[in-house]
């Protein structure tokens, strides 16, 4: 088999031969094409998820019911927004998209380790997206929230197949991610170009490796929990039902044992991208490379033992809460190392503030803002005041909707020249950054106030006193919408008619291997393992 493939490849070696038409995409085993499809899928899902959030903000702009007269539909929107953004926007863009595109390019491999498995990973996710969208249209939809807590998500309170569709959708998405993770781990462990030891890997590769391990360990737990929920719903088991000896809290343990690593799965690749971008535009190697790499590994490990901080109000005894408070706060230490190492990388640099760099700096600052409210919430005592209020919404949108999405935008602006061969328009890019920056802050900052005043999450109507900040928040959503549409426009224009980009448009700071191949990256790259010069390939570990 491997012999055949290599013969096949060598026949096409030098003229960039590729399949044409729909076969090129449907049957693709090429990491770049599959990466492109992931990014495209993320954009479609992003539009759907954004439509849901715009409907939510429009409903909440004023008190009383505006246009969502069916509260179940409101809950379905909230649920769909969460599922879409987590499983079908952030993960496909950062892991499936940038991971596929740039892991082989950056480690000097010709493709992923298992190209055919890469294909099934993508198509499982596409099927999952279809199932999830369908779940919104069958018998009332799934109005369980993305956490799908039973009993609300069991057959008594959500009869009909909507929740089953959502469960199966997550099953497929999970299988897709597990296969992808296996592919990433194998590629990174085995296919690095000679001389690229672990301590010479670019930080994006480190981030992807840690992320892949988190996926591999966390998603099977979700799959198990989903299967139990499925049998509870359809075959009369009672894993999560007190009346049959089960326990609804059991679900929350399983869900968050997956769910908390999941938040690091979403943020770590963004850490990696930001590290590359900060180093490139400061024209300096990463400061404290080893600390940066092991901080990510540390975050990954500790991320597995803090899950119950999402469950401080379920009625744990006090010792359990005390442990989870202390364990959670530990994460602030490696996170602090990352923040300060980024700042130290910039310190003494010769920084060019191109759009990717603006996004990287925006990421760092707003991640700090979202991070400190995380410290607040980690303390079970004050969490009694904040749990399930808009303060929590503000917190996790600062780290996810703002920081992670900034990470995605950062990556797109940084790598778009490599992916499509054209440069984006710098002026438009900067405008897009500032519009988005202002929009998301107006959108999410007032939600801290709403949360402190006690406004609960997931309600379609609120007491009139909350009107002021909600209107401002909805206004911010409109500005953010302009930013998002402008982003799509810039990407479109760049692909259609941007200026041709050189192999390395960023100059001396861009030292990783993807900048040594042409722009756009040819269909086949690194057919021979690239030379790794000690200084040029990555940050020296010294």
């Amino acid at each position, binding site marked *: 088999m491997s012999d055949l493939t290599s013969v096949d490849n060598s026949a096409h070696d030098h003229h960039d031969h590729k399949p044409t038409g729909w076969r090129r995409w449907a049957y693709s085993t090429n990491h770049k094409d599959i990466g492109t499809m992931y990014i495209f899928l993320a954009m479609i899902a992003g539009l759907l998820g954004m439509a849901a959030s715009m409907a939510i903000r429009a409903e909440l702009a004023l008190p009383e019911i505006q246009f969502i007269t069916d509260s179940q539909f409101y809950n379905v929107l909230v649920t769909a927004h969460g599922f879409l953004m987590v499983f079908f926007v952030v993960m496909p863009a950062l892991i499936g998209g940038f991971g596929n595109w740039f892991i082989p390019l950056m480690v000097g491999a010709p493709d992923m380790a298992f190209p055919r498995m890469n294909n099934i990973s993508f198509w499982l996710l596409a099927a999952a997206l279809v199932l999830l969208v369908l779940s919104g249209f069958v018998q009332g939809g799934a109005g369980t929230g993305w956490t799908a807590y039973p009993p609300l998500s069991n057959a008594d309170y959500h009869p009909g197949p909507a929740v089953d569709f959502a469960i199966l959708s997550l099953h497929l998405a999970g299988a897709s991610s597990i296969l992808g993770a296996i592919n990433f781990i194998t590629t990174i462990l085995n296919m690095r170009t000679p001389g690229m030891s672990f301590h010479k890997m670019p930080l994006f590769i480190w981030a992807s490796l840690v992320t892949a391990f988190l996926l591999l360990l966390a998603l099977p737990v979700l799959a198990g929990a989903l299967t139990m929920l499925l049998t509870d719903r359809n075959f009369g088991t009672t894993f999560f039902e007190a009346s049959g000896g089960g326990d609804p809290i059991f679900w929350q343990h399983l869900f968050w044992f997956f769910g908390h690593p999941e938040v690091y799965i979403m943020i770590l690749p963004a850490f990696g991208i930001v590290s590359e971008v900060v180093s490139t535009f400061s024209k*300096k190697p990463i400061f404290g490379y080893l600390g940066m790499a092991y901080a990510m590994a540390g975050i990954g490990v500790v991320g597995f033992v803090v899950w119950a901080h999402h469950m401080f109000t*379920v009625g744990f005894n*006090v010792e359990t809460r*005390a442990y989870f408070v202390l364990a959670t706060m530990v994460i602030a230490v490696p996170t602090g190392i990352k923040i300060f190492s980024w700042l130290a990388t910039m310190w003494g640099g*010769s*920084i060019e503030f191109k759009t990717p760099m603006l996004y990287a*700096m925006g990421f*760092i600052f707003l991640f700090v803002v979202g991070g400190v409210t995380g410290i607040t919430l980690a303390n079970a005592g004050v969490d009694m005041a904040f749990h399930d209020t808009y303060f929590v919404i503000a917190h996790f949108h600062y780290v996810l909707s703002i920081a992670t999405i900034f990470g995605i935008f950062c990556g797109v602006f940084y790598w778009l020249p490599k992916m499509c061969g054209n440069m984006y328009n710098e002026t438009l890019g900067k405008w897009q950054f500032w519009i988005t920056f202002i929009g998301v802050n107006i959108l999410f900052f007032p939600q801290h106030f709403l949360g402190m005043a*006690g406004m609960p999450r997931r309600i379609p109507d609120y*007491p009139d006193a909350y009107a002021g900040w909600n209107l401002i928040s909805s206004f911010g959503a409109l500005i953010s919408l302009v930013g998002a549409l402008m982003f799509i426009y810039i990407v479109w224009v760049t692909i259609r008619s941007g200026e041709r980009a050189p192999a390395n448009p960023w100059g001396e700071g861009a030292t990783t291997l993807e900048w040594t191949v042409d722009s756009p990256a040819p269909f086949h790259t690194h057919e021979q393992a690239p030379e790794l010069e000690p200084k040029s390939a990555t940050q020296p570990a010294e």
Partner: protein
Amino acid sequence: MFDFFRLKASTLSLGLCFWLGFSSNSVVAQNGPQPWQMNFRPAATPVMEDIVSFHNLLLIIEVLIVLFVLGLMVYIVIKFNAKANPVPTKTTHNSFLEVMWTVIPIVILVVIAVPSMKLLYFMDKAPKDKVEMTLKVIGHQWYWSYEYPDAGNLAFDSNLIPDEEIDVSKGQIRLLEVDNRVAIPVDTTIRVIMTSDDVLHNWAIPAFGIKMDTVPGRINEAWIRVPAEKAGVYRGQCSELCGVNHGYMPIVIDAMPKQEFAKWLERAKKEFASNARQVDLAQTKITIDTMVD
């Protein structure tokens, strides 16, 4: 229809007060949320008072961290842009700095952890010998029911007053008004035990620092002690997604002086006499309903 702008002028200053932390009870007779509020509702129990003061500590630390990072970034933008600094340094290490930015955060976390643990253990449960009264809370889709085991199993349901029946002139607040308020005496240590009849709900009273899931098959516990000078009406909303009408099951508590509470009990016992053996009645009702079906 709701008039947004009417809110604005009279209440902006109020919001400002909250923002600056000058929350005073005189402004907030009804203890609900206030327009443009940017801070906690005024604390009505020792637990919430401790939450507020601990949060003040956190807020100061966090604002300082954010300002510190922002300051560094501004300095970097001014000093190390390509024009001001054309030749980048090649520094990639500084052991002293790296140790400092590991150790200082640890110290800060310890400073946070000590009061955090104190608060956590204080709020957990009322000391057993001090409990003077028990209140049972049961969550339903979508209303709360309350029982007073110390008062001959007095029991009643508490339903939302729908928008069209809200009388603003009586000081009623839309979405935060119920037909039967829960009365509690002030200056009394009350143990609240909670469970649910169907899905998860969450019984949350911001001013009391209470937010506890009600879980079918389990009993959760919290405690309240409202000092005499804080008698008044306190409001909260269900805080765990519980289905279609999750946003429509508020909690309204009337904390009243002890004598008033005694009178209220007498009245309530008569009014809700038919509910006294609620459990049996509920089961009977189910049987009848099933038969009718």
